[in-house]
């Protein structure tokens, strides 16, 4: 068990280092640099050089890279080139806004998707199944930002129940939820759609397994068969999808933040691209990658809890 955990953690760290390196160089491949982005078309060549010196862009890229890694080890994400504020402050300031959308979307997605998928599987080829399949297909086909606009029209524009602009006040959870509900719903609907379909197909597969027939033959109640034996076995793909989806949601939140004019990580990235703010870009991307890696790690570890067959031996097995 501990070896398994150690191995996963090590793999995660290596992935992170590779990703950090890739990101560091990738953002610098973008044409133009922060000095040019800030000064636009107006500046003399000498002025640009002065600015580059101030921004620390005149030292060789390799030195910048080593310095970046060194700072990172000390937990320092650097100072934004365009805003002059520590990136960690920028991130912490907007983290609640992104968190409420991602976590909210996951909760909404799971709360709708898992029960809908189970119902759909149990009532296969009946009205409820067709309805769930139709709605989930629509949910998959529509991108999050389209769903967002479709939600805005009735709930924000006509009924006026929810605000459309801004993220609310960070010191008030009620305000965060009020402002975050529609964006979270927009993300959650897409996720619910995926989960419905996955839960349904997994469940159908499991219901055809021998052990379910055996359980039924033993005379167990329907309820016990469906919710104990079947659900537990269906959880592995569902947890995997939840993990993957939380990573997708972070990406989706960029479009959602723009549509809802909310502050958040996505807006930081967009601004970082237009301003060629390498420090902000690499740090926010790093947070994304770290998040994805941690989610994967947690999912891997959860398998052990869900499926006792996954143990030490499996490392050598695969």
């Amino acid at each position, binding site marked *: 068990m501990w070896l398994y955990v150690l191995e996963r953690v090590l793999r995660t760290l290596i992935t992170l280092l590779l990703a950090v390196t890739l990101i560091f160089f990738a953002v610098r491949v973008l044409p133009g640099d922060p000095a040019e*982005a800030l000064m*636009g078309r107006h500046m003399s060549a000498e*002025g640009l050089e002065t600015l580059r010196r101030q921004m620390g862009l005149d030292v060789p890229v390799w030195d910048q890279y080593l310095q970046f890694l060194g700072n990172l080890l000390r937990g320092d994400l650097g100072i934004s080139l365009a805003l002059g504020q520590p990136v960690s402050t920028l991130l912490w*300031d907007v983290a609640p806004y992104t968190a409420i959308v991602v976590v909210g979307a996951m909760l909404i997605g799971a709360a709708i998707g898992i029960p809908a998928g189970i119902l759909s599987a149990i009532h296969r080829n009946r009205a409820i199944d067709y309805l769930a399949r139709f709605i989930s297909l629509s949910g998959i086909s529509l991108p999050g930002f389209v769903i967002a606009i479709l939600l805005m029209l009735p709930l924000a524009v006509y009924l006026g129940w929810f605000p459309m602009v*801004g993220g609310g006040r960070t010191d008030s959870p009620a305000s965060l939820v009020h402002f975050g509900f529609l964006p979270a719903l927009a993300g959650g609907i897409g996720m619910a759609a995926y989960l419905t379909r996955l839960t349904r197909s997994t469940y159908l597969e499991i219901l055809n397994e021998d052990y379910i027939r055996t359980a039924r033959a033993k005379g167990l109640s329907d309820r016990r068969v469906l919710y104990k034996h079947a659900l537990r076995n269906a959880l592995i793909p569902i947890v995997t999808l939840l993990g993957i989806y939380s990573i997708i949601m972070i990406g989706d939140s960029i479009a959602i933040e*723009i549509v809802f*004019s909310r*502050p958040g990580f996505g*807006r930081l990235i967009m601004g970082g691209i237009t*301003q060629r703010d390498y420090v902000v870009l690499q740090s926010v991307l790093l947070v994304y990658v770290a998040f994805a890696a941690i989610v994967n790690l947690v999912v891997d570890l959860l398998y052990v809890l869900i499926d006792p067959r996954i143990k030490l031996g499996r490392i050598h097995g695969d």
Partner: protein
Amino acid sequence: MSNRVKSGLFAAAATVVLAGGVPAASAQELAEAQRVTHAVTAGDVGSLDPTLPWVSVEAPILTVVLEGLVDYPPGEISMDFQPSLAESWEIGDDGRIYTFRLRQGVLWHEDFGEFTAEDVKFTLDRYRDEDVSAWASNYDKVEDVEVVDRYTVKVTLKEADPLFLALVAGNTESVGLMLSRAAFEKRGADAMRLHPIGTGPFAFSEYVPRDRVVLTRNEDYWGGVANLEEIVIRFMPSATSRELALRTGEIDTMRASIDSQLLDRLQKQGFVIDTQGPEVHWWLHMNTDVKPLDDIRVRKAIAHAINPEDLKSFLGPVATVSDTLIANSYFGAASHEDIPEEARWRYDPKLARELLAEAGYGEEGFELSMIITERDDYRQMMVLIQEHLKQVGIELKLNLVDHAHYHSQIVNHVNPLVMFGDISYPNAEILLTRAFRTGALRNFARWSSTDFDQLLDGAGRETDLETRAFLLVEAQKLVAQDFIVLPTTFTAQPLIRHPRVDLGYDLRQSLVLEYRFGTKTRILAEK
């Protein structure tokens, strides 16, 4: 010629009033909350120190927080400069010396003391400094700035410049605004970059990156305390969200894209549409360094292949089609009659095909490939032009890139054709200098004409405005005859406001492409 000058320099902007005007001023009740929220399309500000480049996003902030020595009449761009931080000024030595008498008792925001002649010197010296200022070349003609006494400052120019006051005027998207020496010395330029200190009717209060800037009323304002308590500028890059937020009342005003359907829809919903000049010039430049565009017959063919009416119907009522280079609200613009007939731009696809055949491209035509920004106005116009060129056998390949990349690359002359929307203080000289002078950064045609350069030099030295305008017209003829650029269309800027927002002035022209709120701007109670 004389007509144009006599009728006032920049008189009669070609603005189109689509709906309503300013609601009747007196008998209106005021709303309780005197706050206006304005949405800008950009995702964030670049800098709030006017020494660095700033554009339409920063303009509604900077021009109400900071002020110039002089200002234009409200809602208008003309030579009729009005006192602002300077109470009066005298022009001596044949236009070389400007002596400004400053208003007394004007206070900087946040206790930075009184505005004095030292601040004016500090500001102009800072703007002139090539190492820190993006605008240094604008101040080339300034020889010296001298503090005469606490409230008097003397600016000496190397040569007379009848347009010098525009360089110290407010309501602008470039320079002119006075900076606090004390604030820069105490806080340092780095800290001032996103925290402006001014003397204006509104003071900077809060900046939340990627989200908003909040300005609050300056209770000590010398020009009378403003009606509005607060101005919120929100960064909202999504067009759909801006439109919906206008309907929910979460924003009050915004700048609209140039899109005839959108304007139509908003008007039907009861919003007021203001259109303001000066016009943006949508010029299509042709790079004469690139084959086969080095052949004037090919350039002419491209010019005659493009149908301006298509562009106009896409852009809607804010657009005017032109066969001359510069909109007639600009000083020194050539008129239709000034340009010889064979050099005028007109739609004639048959002639285009003949010209191509003559140049040896009759059978197969040829291909061109270029990058274009994903921004709607640019992109859609180029897509229409792509279709027009196809009709005469020219295959134009468009590669989409982001807006910043587009602008950073076109100055490296990677494109055979460059679409560029330019706007300036309404003086033809500025647009001509930027685009056609030998070696100019935005000389996208890579054109070089000694005659043209000499005409511009002459115009720059000329103090008689009529002769100056004549020289500029001659320069435009040279550009037209060589077919290095197509004027395509001019567009006025549409701005949208809820009828409850009373601007307090009649908006016709502004160098701020967004709303500039004034002391008289107020929010009316809704019926």
